[in-house]
């Protein structure tokens, strides 16, 4: 053995022994054996919890997306309905209203729905192939609200009442309010589910930590006796929970993201699920936006943080009771 071309020189016996011994010491053993702290069961629980939380978070963003979409459509549109009444011609009254609407500042694309269009709207209620002429079908006018001028809808209402008492203006405020209430409800319910799932994750970790610490009581005692601080001991345990929660949370998060990715590339994914035939029609494509995937990532991160912090706090509490 030569170093820098130096002459072969026998090492002193002790030094050789020491070098040999030092060379195969390797990584020090973990202070607490990994298998005694976290197991596959805990990782599985964390994975399931993360999966549920991620699905909830992503679904919240889906519903939020859909409702903002509807609401912006609804808010830019008005409908005027002219009900049929005795001794009046609906078509003539509708035409009169259309003129008023056309001249009203802030409205554009004023259009009278044809009898066929109106009939199609009534189909779900009255069925197909009706003789519309025999029914008092109302006239319907739709108009778009211009982006540049905000129309004074109240004075339009007054103007309409004066011209045609049977005309009623619908600016969809009621629908918008109901949609907004529903989306708030989904948000609130989702947040509650999310909170409960995260809380049960924390509880599972707390139980697991307690049993891990008491199972390793002898080790904790020795660590105390050689002068280890509580923070050192907490870190020893916390490391195992950090690794376990990373494994579990990533598995759960990836599974949730994969589910949405599959749904996005399979257009009638939802309609295959029994009883959800109308869902796709209602919320459109089940297409998770980047914000949804971000939500899943945030859930994964939260689970890891919650699990690690819960483990640390619990170790502190438990070891105080040992000493």
């Amino acid at each position, binding site marked *: 053995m030569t170093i820098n071309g130096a002459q072969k020189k026998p090492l002193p016996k002790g030094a050789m022994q020491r070098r040999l011994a*030092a060379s195969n*010491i390797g990584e020090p053993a973990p202070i607490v054996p990994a298998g005694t702290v976290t197991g596959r069961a805990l990782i599985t629980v964390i994975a399931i919890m993360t999966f549920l939380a991620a699905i909830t978070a992503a679904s919240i963003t889906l519903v939020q997306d859909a409702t903002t979409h509807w609401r912006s459509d609804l808010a830019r549109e008005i409908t005027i309905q002219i009900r049929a009444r005795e001794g009046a011609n609906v078509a003539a009254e509708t035409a009169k209203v259309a003129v008023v609407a056309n001249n009203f500042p802030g409205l554009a694309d004023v259009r009278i729905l044809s009898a066929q269009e109106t009939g199609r709207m009534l189909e779900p209620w009255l069925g197909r192939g009706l003789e519309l002429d025999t029914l008092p079908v109302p006239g319907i006018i739709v108009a778009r609200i211009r982006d540049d001028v905000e129309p004074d809808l109240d004075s339009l209402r007054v103007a309409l009442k004066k011209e045609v008492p049977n005309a009623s203006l619908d600016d969809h405020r009621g629908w918008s309010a109901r949609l907004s209430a529903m989306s708030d409800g989904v948000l609130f319910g989702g947040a509650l589910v999310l909170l409960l799932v995260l809380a049960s994750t924390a509880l599972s970790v707390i139980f697991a930590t307690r049993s891990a610490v008491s199972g390793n009581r002898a080790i904790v005692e020795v660590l105390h006796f050689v002068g280890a601080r509580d923070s050192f001991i907490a870190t020893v345990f916390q490391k195992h929970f950090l690794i376990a929660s990373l494994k579990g949370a990533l598995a759960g998060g990836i599974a949730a993201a994969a589910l949405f990715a599959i749904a996005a590339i399979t257009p009638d994914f939802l309609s295959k699920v029994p009883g959800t035939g109308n869902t796709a029609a209602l919320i459109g494509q089940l297409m998770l936006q980047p914000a949804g995937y971000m939500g899943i990532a945030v859930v994964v991160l939260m689970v890891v943080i919650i699990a690690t912090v819960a483990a640390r706090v619990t170790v502190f509490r438990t070891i105080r009771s040992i000493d």
Partner: protein
Amino acid sequence: MLETIPRAIIPTDNGGSSSILALIRHLNFAIRPRSGARLARSIRPGGRLIRFENVGLRYGTGPEVLRDVSFAIEKGSFQFLTGPSGAGKSSLLRLLFLSQRPTRGLITLFGHDVSGLKPDTVADVRRQIGIVFQDFRLLDHMTTYDNVALPLRILGRDERTYRPEVIELLQWVGLGERMHALPPVLSGGEKQRVAIARALIRRPELLLADEPTGNVDPPLAKRLLHLFTELHKSGTAVMIATHDLSLMEQFDARRLVLNEGRLYDD
């Protein structure tokens, strides 16, 4: 085999003077005949490490195991603690390393009143104390090397910085070959030496040993006692709890005798 190991160690010139390396070097030197080498660390006499004043201890609602115990341990002193089985020797040591609190009386450890110590201060006090338990308390999943290195590891030190100290101390107590063995496969005497090495590795200010020669033959007991007396000469205060009379006869030192819960200074 034990006789030959120390001579195999050739002192090197790294490591601080307070590290275990300095002590081992001193021990190697001192063990040789006609060696003039003396104290590696100067003793500052008169300083008090520990003070007990009218200390009483009872477990739960039981009788008082210790009654009106008053004594002091000086810096760098050496004492035996003796008394019949069940007299309370282990209990007294438990008070000394803070695993028990007194039910009455006053204990001062390294200048701290032990009542109401913060957990981190307890850890700091324990870092100045080395303990050899009657039942060793080794960690079974760790090698001999890792067990002995534990007191340095919990200080957050990098493994490479203490490796030579641990290896040299292990070789000195005759466990160089058993470095990678796990405690369950060690003999009683080997375990005892691992426990002693773990207590010494930080060169504590105070060494407490509970029956440290309980599992070894007389020649090894003599050798371990020699280790303790040399440690004492290097400035460490030592307290050995034992009921082994022949051990106490080998070294003339203060004897604290426990009998029926009371302490007598012999």
